[in-house]
């Protein structure tokens, strides 16, 4: 008989769950879901080595394990701390955590330009969500926010260094998805910046994914720049046969026009399948894609306001009312009148219709 795998029992905010050994506190909390899941700005489950830097996911460990029930003296980064059997974790039930998270949000926003009104990320920005959920109103910072020399990353990717929170996700993405990373973090401390050192364009086939992993508006899609606000667009799932990637994407439409293409994201805002640059930047016509249907958008998101998920065509009731008889045409107006000639196509008239058009 195969030995049963021992599961670890962990209690987070008084909710107990059994998880496999080697699971991080954050992932265990995500299994519970809801408010229990700590926010994460730098951790990305698909990127190895990410996490631990932003400190928004700090939690209090009230008891280390059944074997050693001592509490951990410091708050720990839940994304990089694995659960132990019998561990008791406090997230939103801990005053210390709420206070520390408050501080971290303030630190993250300290030098952030707050240029949301002109930022393409607004509406799907994790920093916006984080500050609404965990921040305080107003800042106590009275100094000039830091600025950087503009740095060009080529035709596809727009870099706004002032918005960057140095989560290192794009660095890990380039390391793990492309064969050669050409950008990285230069300098250190509060003057650290994302750049290529000598201006180079990022042109690897999969480098576009850095746009999707960026939690803020530091890396945005140049082909979508200032084209539209995301909440005016309607996301639909679509796919195509792509020789390079899975081809599974989300199209952001307005009417028939495809404004941008992104990878599909799960409920934690993480990419499900990486997509290639060709799918992302070159295929901006509905004809290129097989539409699957509207993307599920969380009700928390501002994007859901213009979304037509759940909208149904009204039922055709006339036949039912007429006891199964089909409606019959009693009189065709064109039989008795010269008005409104059917040969005149209204949509092809230049300007508003005029009686001259029907002469």
């Amino acid at each position: 008989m195969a030995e049963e795998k021992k599961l670890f029992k962990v209690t987070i905010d008084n909710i107990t769950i059994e998880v496999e050994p080697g699971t991080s506190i954050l992932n265990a909390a995500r299994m519970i879901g809801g408010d229990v899941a700590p926010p994460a700005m730098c951790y990305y489950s698909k990127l190895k080595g990410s996490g631990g830097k932003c400190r928004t996911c700090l939690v209090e460990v009230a008891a280390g394990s059944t074997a050693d029930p001592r509490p951990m003296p410091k708050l720990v980064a839940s994304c990089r701390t694995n659960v132990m059997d019998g561990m008791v974790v406090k997230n939103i039930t801990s005053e210390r955590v709420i206070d520390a998270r408050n501080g971290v949000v303030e630190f993250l926003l300290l030098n952030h330009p707050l240029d949301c009104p002109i930022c393409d990320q607004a509406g799907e920005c994790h920093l916006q969500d984080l500050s609404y959920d965990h921040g305080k109103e107003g800042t106590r910072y009275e100094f000039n926010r830091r600025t950087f020399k503009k740095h060009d990353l080529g035709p596809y990717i727009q870099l706004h260094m002032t918005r960057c929170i140095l989560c290192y996700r794009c660095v890990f993405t380039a390391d793990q998805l492309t064969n050669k990373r050409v950008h990285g973090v230069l300098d250190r401390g509060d003057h650290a910046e994302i750049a290529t050192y000598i201006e180079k364009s990022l042109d690897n086939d999969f480098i576009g994914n850095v746009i999707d992993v960026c939690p803020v508006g530091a890396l945005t899609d140049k082909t979508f720049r200032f084209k539209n606000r995301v909440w005016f667009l309607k996301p639909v799932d679509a796919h195509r046969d792509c020789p390079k990637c899975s081809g599974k994407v989300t199209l952001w439409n307005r009417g028939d026009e495809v404004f941008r293409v992104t990878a599909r994201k799960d409920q934690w805002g993480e990419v499900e399948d990486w997509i290639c640059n060709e799918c992302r930047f070159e295929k901006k016509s509905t004809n290129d894609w097989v539409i699957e249907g509207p993307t599920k958008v969380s009700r928390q998101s501002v994007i859901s306001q213009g979304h037509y998920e759940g909208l149904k065509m009204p039922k055709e009731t006339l036949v039912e009312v007429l006891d199964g008889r089909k409606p019959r045409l009693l009189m065709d107006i064109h039989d008795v009148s010269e008005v409104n000639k059917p040969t005149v196509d209204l949509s092809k008239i230049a300007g508003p219709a005029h009686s001259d058009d029907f002469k």
Partner: protein
Amino acid sequence: MGRKLLLEKAHVPGIRSYEVYRREGGYASVEKAFKHMSPDLVTEEVKKSGLRGRGGAGFPTGMKWSFLAKPEGVPRYLVCNADESEPGTFKDRYLMEFIPHLLIEGLIVASYALGSNRTYIYIRGEYAWIVDILEQAIAEANANGWLGKNIMGTGFDCQIYVQRGAGAYICGEETALIESLEGKRGNPRIKPPFPAVKGLWDCPTVVNNVETLAAVVPIINLGGEEYAKIGIGKSTGTKLISACGNINKPGVFEIDMTISVEEFIYSEEYCGGIPNGKKLKACIPGGSSVPILPANLLFKTAKGDTRIMNYESLSDGGFATGTMMGSGGFIVLDEDQCVVRHTLTLARFYRHESCGQCSPCREGTGWMEKILKNIEYGKGKKSDIDLLWDIQRKIEGNTICPLGDAAAWPVAAAIRHFRDEFEWHVDNPVESQSRNFGLAHYADPRPVPVTA
């Protein structure tokens, strides 16, 4: 006169060369360890000696060594942390410059104990000339059979390499040091895993300070128990103190951790008092990152006991009324020094040296510097002092590595003990630009609580 173990022979002419060092009894510990002791026995001796890490944290060295994972077929590494960049600390520089063979000797014994066949000295970039001195010493040790293959016929191979850093304070943090040694950006790693399990190139690694490794030599020569007899309680052996600031005789001193702080500052053997008959205002006894203490808490603890220059006594009273031994960078401030300006200097240093990896340290250190600058230049507000306190509180303990704590503690201690001076700066913006707050009541004796 305290006992000297490390710097005893430092002033013998020509001690830097192998011949003189050997003539003075050098490499005896290697002979003793290789001929008569097993690696585990060496670790056991170090454990018995009670030696504590001299880099700042004061963690027992023998314990650290015994934590080293020893899986089969995986190399283990010993790394010597010579990235001494703490403002006020310059003891390792002195040791490496004047008596380099002592470090090499200690490294060979420690490598033997830990089974490290490739040992690295990671040295601060600014210590460029010391690299030459160390490499010379390594070459001499190689030529005389202390390094290389099959040392003294024991079958143990060891080679020492010197690697220069690029001058970043953060690379003195052990995991950042390892990253830098691997050729990457010097960002601290997230622990666990600790270096003892996954360090250099993902192999078990021990990182020790220069002075710690040099202290292995007298421990083996004397025996661990004999070494432990020097000093008081858990502060065993001797400690190098680099004294600077307003004192008559700045320099590196070896103390045996039994003398009082008062004696250390005023005796002719050590600092030799404060120049020009000035009075003592404050002191940072362990390098820039430990809390500053006013004169009235420096000589006597809050309980009224005499403060001794050792780990326990200096930290007596916790952060409320105590400080830390740290790395032994003893900075003395006389009555003419301005604590606000001093705190600003430190804040600027930590802002500049923060690696920028985690948000509280990256953003908080810069913010603190800007506020301190305002206060120092007469543009501060009363609320700024409380704001500073709140910022340091939110940095401390919430960062990946101890640099965040090191940046927060000096600010916290300065506000805790010298709040009047900060307030004076805010209330007298014009006057504060032309004169100092002075000594005020900082040297007045504190009322000692009566214990029943």
